[in-house]
């Protein structure tokens, strides 16, 4: 049996990535899939028991109101011992990255992280070298296995349950008092720019090399009627404000057109923009991962292509030629 550990947002809603993890567990095809939920309200229970799972293990304890890795690991070890799964599977979220390695080690096992596919029930596929390579990875025999699956790598659209909700087993877990005191969750000064509704976005990455080249990107954005956005390194360097950042630590966008200029396409960036309807990429490296999700790609020097593109767009303000 595969045990999928679900995660809830602060709002109480089940993280959609956890539903993808359930879909991944099903795709493994090794039999029953159960889910585990720590704390969480009735709506989270309802959302999970409406999934095609055999059973939901619902951990109960006052400490489960706030996430803490110590508490999570102790609670999950108790559920693990009761449920006796052959594999633990969860979405590769920031929270999972925080506690899953600890859980795997506590169980005497290992974590295979950031999995994007399965080759067989025992062999998982994950990116290495920043996505330049893929690796087929297996667990050493006879140890407990924990797997995190990359967000967006598995499709939850096929998750359907016929009939009554899955049964729920309450588990009264007994974690020690947390060593880590967690404060309130907050956002910094409210976001001035909401990119999530922008119909057209021009995003720049490391490839633009110098902040003075941002002017060229601004001209391109103006020529397209686009908002300007960036990958993390650009905002980290202070070349553009943080509220222009697209990716897992920034905004998630889904424009009609996303033009990536000098962005290689690290997964942390892709998760923030792969819902875009059309993706266009300009990059000098033909192996850049951004080209894998691009509908149109230009392999070339952005310092030649972008000025030519600005000129071409300004010369053809009307209807498309074809």
């Amino acid at each position, binding site marked *: 049996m595969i045990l999928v550990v679900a995660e809830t947002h602060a709002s109480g809603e089940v993280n959609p990535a956890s539903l993808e993890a359930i879909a991944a567990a099903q795709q493994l095809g090794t039999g029953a899939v159960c889910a585990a939920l720590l704390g969480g309200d009735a709506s989270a229970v309802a959302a999970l028991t409406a999934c095609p799972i055999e059973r939901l293990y619902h951990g109960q304890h006052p400490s489960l109101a706030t996430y803490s890795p110590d508490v999570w690991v102790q609670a999950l070890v108790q559920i693990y011992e009761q449920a006796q799964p052959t594999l633990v599977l969860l979405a590769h979220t*920031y929270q999972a990255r925080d506690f899953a390695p600890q859980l795997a080690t506590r169980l005497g096992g290992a974590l295979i992280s950031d999995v994007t596919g399965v080759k067989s029930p025992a062999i998982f596929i994950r990116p290495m070298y920043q996505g330049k390579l*893929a690796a087929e990875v297996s667990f050493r025999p006879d140890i407990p296995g924990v797997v995190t699956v990359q967000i967006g790598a598995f499709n939850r659209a096929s998750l359907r349950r016929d009939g009554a909700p899955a049964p729920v087993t309450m588990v009264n877990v007994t974690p020690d008092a947390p060593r880590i005191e*967690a404060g309130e969750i907050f956002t910094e000064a409210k976001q001035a720019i909401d990119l999530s509704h922008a*119909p057209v976005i021009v995003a720049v990455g490391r490839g633009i090399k110098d902040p003075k080249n941002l002017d060229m990107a601004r001209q391109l954005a103006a020529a397209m009627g686009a908002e300007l956005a960036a990958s993390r390194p650009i905002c980290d*360097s202070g070349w553009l404000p943080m509220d222009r950042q697209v990716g897992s630590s920034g905004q998630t966008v889904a424009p009609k057109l996303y033009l990536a200029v000098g962005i290689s396409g690290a997964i942390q960036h892709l998760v923030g923009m792969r819902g875009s309807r059309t993706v266009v990429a300009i990059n000098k490296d033909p192996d850049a991962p951004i080209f*894998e999700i691009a509908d149109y790609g230009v392999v070339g020097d952005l310092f030649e292509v972008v000025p030519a593109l600005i000129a071409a767009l300004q010369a053809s303000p009307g209807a*498309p030629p074809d």
Partner: protein
Amino acid sequence: MKILVCLKQVPGKDAPVRIEANQRAIRDDVPYEINEPDLFALEAALRLKEAQVQGGSEPAGEPQSEIVALTVGPARASQALREALAKGADRAIHVEGAEAPQLDAYAVAEAITRAIAGESYDLILTGLQADDDGFGQTGVIVAELLGAPHATIIMEIVPVAGRARIRAKRELEGGRFQWVEMPTPAVLAIQSGIGKLRYATLMGIKQAKNKPLRQTTLEELGVRPSLNRQVIERLYVPAKRQGGELLTGTAAEQAAQLAARIRREIPR
């Protein structure tokens, strides 16, 4: 405050990644550099030390702040430690072994904890993940092996009550944050981009030559690839997704084709 910074040497960002004939490793005839996320861990340690020394918050009678850089890697990795010393680390530990690149996150964490047995650190800092194998686990496993609390994706660190406790700002998804507080010793995995990275000064490079660098080996520590809990069966270049159209020609021709497609997608 005594801080251990764990660094890894990884292939340079633009280095070609070529797979060995056995399909389980990459060829090592490439330039190496310090894993960029680990540079931010070092930077965080240097800033903590500077703040304590300048702020006079070194607890009275306590030993001075000390930053120790540690790496688990083959002989070439001593260069990473020299760089860390030149940037301001006080001493270094090299866990040397030709088999180091074959170790998984668990085995590396074993090597780190065994190498520092008998020492006591207030803080252990790592980068968020290594840009080569991308496990993103080593720091958390070190914490588990030491029985220490940990936090990951850390943006800011503030010592509390001298050095007995530490407050750290965690980054959550979607631009949200949270402060967490825990007793030391603690392990923190540092988010990249928390501040501008410094360069080594000429003076620093000179001084680095006289700073202590302790050598130990994987063999002495009893760490070998058989400790690995996960096995790379095969490395390969992933197939590119089909369907995307590559526009060819000169820059001007590419731009013209692109402009036509952009106008089709977003007609004015």
